[in-house]
């Protein structure tokens, strides 16, 4: 393994230019060069970002922190951005969003993510129980607008709740790495002090410029503050919040409370929010009800329980189809969100981005399909 990532990257750019050339493409018709690169090293790809797990840490009982080493196609993440991570579990590729928690300026070419384990979840539980160094995952490039502005303000106020700490952690680490001369107030809401993934690191990093405040909602007296977010908390730890650049990340109620307060005071242009929602897996299995949305055509129709194909045609769309009995896969399309049921065998699919056969699939509740 080449130690110097920037050197490796420069070399890779030359190799990639050759591999991406028309001649090599013509020689590797129809499968493409990636399929052959994978024979040599599964991490190699001309365009795809793949990463190998380089380290696994269990800071708390219900979380796992992974250090990932992406291949040279990774273009880096700005502080606060997230990636879509795909991992294969029992033969099925599953994709979830994770915020990058590491500093944007981390020099060793690795990134860090932390997954909070959702007991009903597939991916987070798998990562907690089975992730070992050497596990390979696929990544998207970094995405998201929850990032630092070009010109840094004098005061940054960070508010997070639960696992929403991860992108905020990236902001803190990046600002620290860049010797940010201003002031940071970091206000974190947690059930109990022991649940905070980065507690030790934050305690060590706290200084006159970085004020770390925990508020425990289920363990009075454990943090400097108690209970859920309210205005008094801010008046106590960051009375100048109106002049600060504020970032908030966490569960819906926290975001709503913060946003409402900022809107009320007319300072919402200095607020950036990132919503974290736990996937509601299998929670909604009604056969009708909710809305069926066709994302590509922008049409929404109330879900009447018939197959997606019939409902799409009822809404005036004409998706490709063939046998209309689940045989030919001509109508297979991507379901972007929601739960669906196969009408032939009753199997429920909740996975985001799954391919479904429109002719034998009925939506359960709110569903989005890419047609």
């Amino acid at each position, binding site marked *: 393994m080449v130690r110097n990532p920037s050197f490796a990257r420069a070399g890779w750019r030359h190799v990639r230019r050759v591999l991406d050339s028309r*001649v090599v493409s*013509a*020689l590797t*018709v*129809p*499968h493409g060069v990636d*399929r*052959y690169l*994978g*024979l040599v090293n599964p991490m190699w790809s001309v365009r795809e970002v793949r990463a190998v797990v380089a380290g696994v840490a269990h800071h708390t009982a219900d979380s796992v922190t992974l250090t990932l080493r992406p291949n040279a196609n990774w273009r880096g993440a700005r502080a606060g951005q997230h990636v879509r991570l795909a991992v*294969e579990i*029992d*033969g*099925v*590729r*599953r*994709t979830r969003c994770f915020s990058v928690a590491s500093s944007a300026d981390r020099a060793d070419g690795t990134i860090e993510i932390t997954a909070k384990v959702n007991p009903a979840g597939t991916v987070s539980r798998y990562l907690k129980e089975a992730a070992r160094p050497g596990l390979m995952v696929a990544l998207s490039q970094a995405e998201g607008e929850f990032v630092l502005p070009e010109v840094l303000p004098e005061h940054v106020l960070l508010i997070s709740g639960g696992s929403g700490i991860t992108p905020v952690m990236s902001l803190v680490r990046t600002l620290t790495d860049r010797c940010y001369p201003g002031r940071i107030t970091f206000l974190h809401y947690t059930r109990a002090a022991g649940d905070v993934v980065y507690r030790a690191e934050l305690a060590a990093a706290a200084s006159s410029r970085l004020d770390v405040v925990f508020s425990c909602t289920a363990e009075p007296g454990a943090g400097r503050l108690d209970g859920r977010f309210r205005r008094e908390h801010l008046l106590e730890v960051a009375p100048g919040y109106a002049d600060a650049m504020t970032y908030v990340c966490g569960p819906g109620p926290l975001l709503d409370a913060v946003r409402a307060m900022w809107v009320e005071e007319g300072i919402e242009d200095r607020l950036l929010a990132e919503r974290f929602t736990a996937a509601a897996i299998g929670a909604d299995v009604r056969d009708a009800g909710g809305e069926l949305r066709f994302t590509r055509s922008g049409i929404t129709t109330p879900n009447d329980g018939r197959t997606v194909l019939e409902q799409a045609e009822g809404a005036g769309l004409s998706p490709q189809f*063939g*046998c209309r*009995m*689940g*045989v*030919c*896969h*001509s109508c*297979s399309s991507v379901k972007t969100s929601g739960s669906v049921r196969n009408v*032939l*065998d*009753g*199997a429920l699919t909740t*996975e985001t*981005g*799954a*391919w479904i*056969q429109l002719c034998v699939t009925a939506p359960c509740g709110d569903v989005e399909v890419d047609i």
Partner: protein
Amino acid sequence: MATRIPRLTPEQFAALGRELDALRRELAGDLGEQDAAYIRRVVTAQQRFEVAGRALLWAGWFPPAWLAGTAALSISKILDNMEIGHNVMHGQYDWMGDPALNSKMFEWDTVCPAEQWRHTHNYVHHTFTNILGKDRDIGYGLLRMIDAQRWRPYYLGNPVYAFVLMLAFEWGVMLHDLEIEKLRTGRKSWAETKGLRRRMWHKGVKQALKDYVLFPVLSGPGALATLTGNATANLVRNLWAFSIIFCGHFPEGVADFTEQECEEETRGQWYYRQMLGSSNIEGGKLFHLVAGNLSFQIEHHLFPDIPARRYQEIAPRVREISDRYGLRYNTGPLSRQVGSVWKKIFRLALPPSRKTAPAGRRGQRVAPEAARVA
């Protein structure tokens, strides 16, 4: 339906449908890591054969290298087209969510564009299997493969057409969607095929460029050895694919159906048609692998989107169901099935003679013991 498929009662059809649906559910529910690992192993093996084949042919001036290289490349193309391409494009691995194994994204190492194949094969052939006038795979618009096709003097050339099709099978598969028989009789205009022809041209040129220009040129002085090696590998694949595929529906005794029979078909009747309209080939594990498990044509036609490695496992149960309903489970060793196919190709070249044709067929189609079942 009543006249030509008389021996199963509506209740029996319903029961057959329920039984096979239950088997399908059982299989679909059991898919997982093993199936994923299997197809990945096959893909890896195919890639290794391909790389080894290309590398050996680079030294193709040395006869043993030519032979080994050509053999490796032939195996690569056979695996790519049959156990991987055909099966992946059926959606057998769509549940994995891997773009490289997705039915809508996969493209195979043959001149027929995947998109056209999915239409003619997955939809037309698998939905309307063996319905004369709807399943264009009955003779591919070229051959007389069932007695019910009306004889014309043109069919005197049946064996010749079949032989040429066998040699150039990948090109025949590509041209299939043009519906040449309709173009010939004026039921379809040449202009209608413009889009098809463009896509065929694009794929055909790419495939030919790779095998017949680029790799030979890369071999420098050994260009001719590489060229002949590549051409031989394509030919071997053609012969093999043709033979396996023709054994799937054309041996003697396989039933065909009319459009009237299949109107308002129930699920049970659809399964019934798939079972009677397909035939298997017996053989060992390795044989089934290089046959892309199309040697389990009956099981494949019942459950076309269940991973093919499962067919072997359910074959005894499908056979037991066939026997119980008194339906013929058509199977035999490769030599017998191929022999039967060619005998039929020759027999159907000639006009039907009164004493053999229709009566015999009818006898095979019906289910003699079915009455007992209900």
